[in-house]
């Protein structure tokens, strides 16, 4: 428990490197997120928010700088290692849920465990358990198209938890939901943070949602311009 969950130093991300249209998106980010912390990253579109999320989520490697995730060096990892890091260390929750349309809720939850090489019986057992936890056990055989937005997001959260990743990375998780459903999803995140000690990074452009987190990190034009305690955060 000594090292932080996320430890970024001098992260620079440049696209089209060496070409005339070279574009530097992040200009040297230093970011530390401790274990069990619930932080939010806010910023306008074009602030580099998505790029930073991709880097945190080990979907991409930084051009410069170092990034340790749960003590593992991501900045120099090979594709295969990045896959394993995403599989074992990170649970993704997307704005548009990104469930596999042809697979039912339970199969969707099982997917990361399939890639992690869990045996079939274990996958099924754990998927049912997680669906029960998010209150979706009655819908485990339903296809995503048969579920409402809030239900889909709950399935997606169950999927993010399936390999017991220590870090949940949520990209606008309530962006496609109405206020009431957003509330249930946010409550679920708070519960996971409180009861399971998950480290959660929430990416949002909503100041209200960001205020619920322990720490709000503001990104403007590829730089971190401010950090403050969440005004509405309470244990």
């Amino acid at each position: 428990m000594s090292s932080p969950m996320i430890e970024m130093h001098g992260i620079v991300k440049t696209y089209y490197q060496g070409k005339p249209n070279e574009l530097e998106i992040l200009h040297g980010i230093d970011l530390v997120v401790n274990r069990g912390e619930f932080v939010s990253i806010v910023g306008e579109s074009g602030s580099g928010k998505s790029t930073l999320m991709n880097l945190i989520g080990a979907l991409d490697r930084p051009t410069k700088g170092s990034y340790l995730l749960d003590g593992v060096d991501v900045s120099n990892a090979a594709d295969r290692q990045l896959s394993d890091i995403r599989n074992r260390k990170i649970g993704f929750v997307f704005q548009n849920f990104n469930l596999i349309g042809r697979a039912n809720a339970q199969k969707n939850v099982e997917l990361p465990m399939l890639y992690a090489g869990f045996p079939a019986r274990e996958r099924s057992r754990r998927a049912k358990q997680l669906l029960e936890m998010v209150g979706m056990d009655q819908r485990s055989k339903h296809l995503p198209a048969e579920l409402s937005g809030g239900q889909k997001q709950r399935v997606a959260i169950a999927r993010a938890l399936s390999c017991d990743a220590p870090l949940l990375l949520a990209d606008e998780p309530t962006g496609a939901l109405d206020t009431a459903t957003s509330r249930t999803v946010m409550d679920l995140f708070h519960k996971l943070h409180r009861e399971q000690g998950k480290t959660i990074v929430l990416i949002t452009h909503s100041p209200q949602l960001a205020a619920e987190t322990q720490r709000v990190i503001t990104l403007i034009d590829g730089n971190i311009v401010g950090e403050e305690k969440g005004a509405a955060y309470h244990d």
Partner: protein
Amino acid sequence: MIDNILLAFSSLFANKMRALLTMLGIIIGIGAVIAIVTLGDSLTGSITDSMNSMGASNITVSLQQKSSDDAGALMFGRTDPGAEDLITPTMIEEYRTQFGDKIRAIALSRQLGNGEVSSGENTATVSITGVNTDYQTLDGPTMLSGRFVRDEDGERMVAVVSDVFVESVFPNSQNVLGESFDVTVGNAVMRFFIAGVYEYEENGFISMDNSDPVTTVYIPVETARRLLSESEGYESLTIMGASGEDSTALMEQTESFFASYYTHNDSYTIAASSLESMLSTMTEMLDTVKLAVAAIAAISLLVGGIGVMNIMLVSITERTREIGVRKALGARNLDIRIQFITESVVICLVGGVFGIALGVGLGALGASLVGTPAKPSIAAIGMAAGFSMAIGVFFGYYPANKAAKLDPIEALRYE
């Protein structure tokens, strides 16, 4: 792996029509091959069966005009072999001495022609053939009473007749052995004494309607020679190899043995042949046809394979986002590659199974039209299944690899 196969089937069912159209090339290709191979095997099988029942391994040795004389033969027509060209009894004896343990029989025969036999009101048409003792072993009839022609008969006027002949010429006799009958061949009338009666067998190849069958009267070959006033020697003879003898080898040895007598003969030489060797020539021809059809089918399979590749590329484009999600959830490039290769193999294999069913059906239909029992070739079916899998791997690899190499961020952003 099982998950991948189930996944492949689920995406197949999600687009039934598209999958079917994609498979069509494979179905037609595999179907054509299986149909032709099934039909070909059935034909070969039935030909072999009927030839074996006819004594396919019997070797026929006959005189053959030398090819250098072709021009002359064309100009003057075929010249009959003279007395000096014939296969002499001496040659046959020497052959028997040299190959004794390899052969079972050397059958000799001479056609005397057709004759009329009258007895009171009854007449019968017979075909008179001079034969030797070995003829019975080779091609001879089943004896009902008496004996077959013997070499010791020499030039005696003995005859072996059929039961059908006996019924029409001696309708009231119990025992005809030793009885005599007169036969008219051309202008000559000859009297033969019956030495034996054989069981007449319906000739399977030429139906005889209801008219009285022409049955064969067997007489000693030497008698026939004397009656024909022919010189000693034969234009052809038939050899039956000892059981277990390699008939192809025996045929070659026999041909070179007899041909050695004809090295200085300008017009004639010896050719040996057997139904078996003719059969193998036919089989070779059939194999060539099969090969040609296989080549056409291969083109069809190639086109089918390209179709599969095309549809896989479309499918991957459609599912770019899914690929991105899978990668974000921890799928390695290898996992994605295997997933899509499995899908492509499943498409091809299902197509292959349909094709095999279609081919076996068509082959059976064709065989029943030709009138032979259908013989689906297990080897061909196995090869077809294997081949369609190989197509799946080959044409699935490029699209699968493309999918595996997708950038997860780009893929996730794909609309």
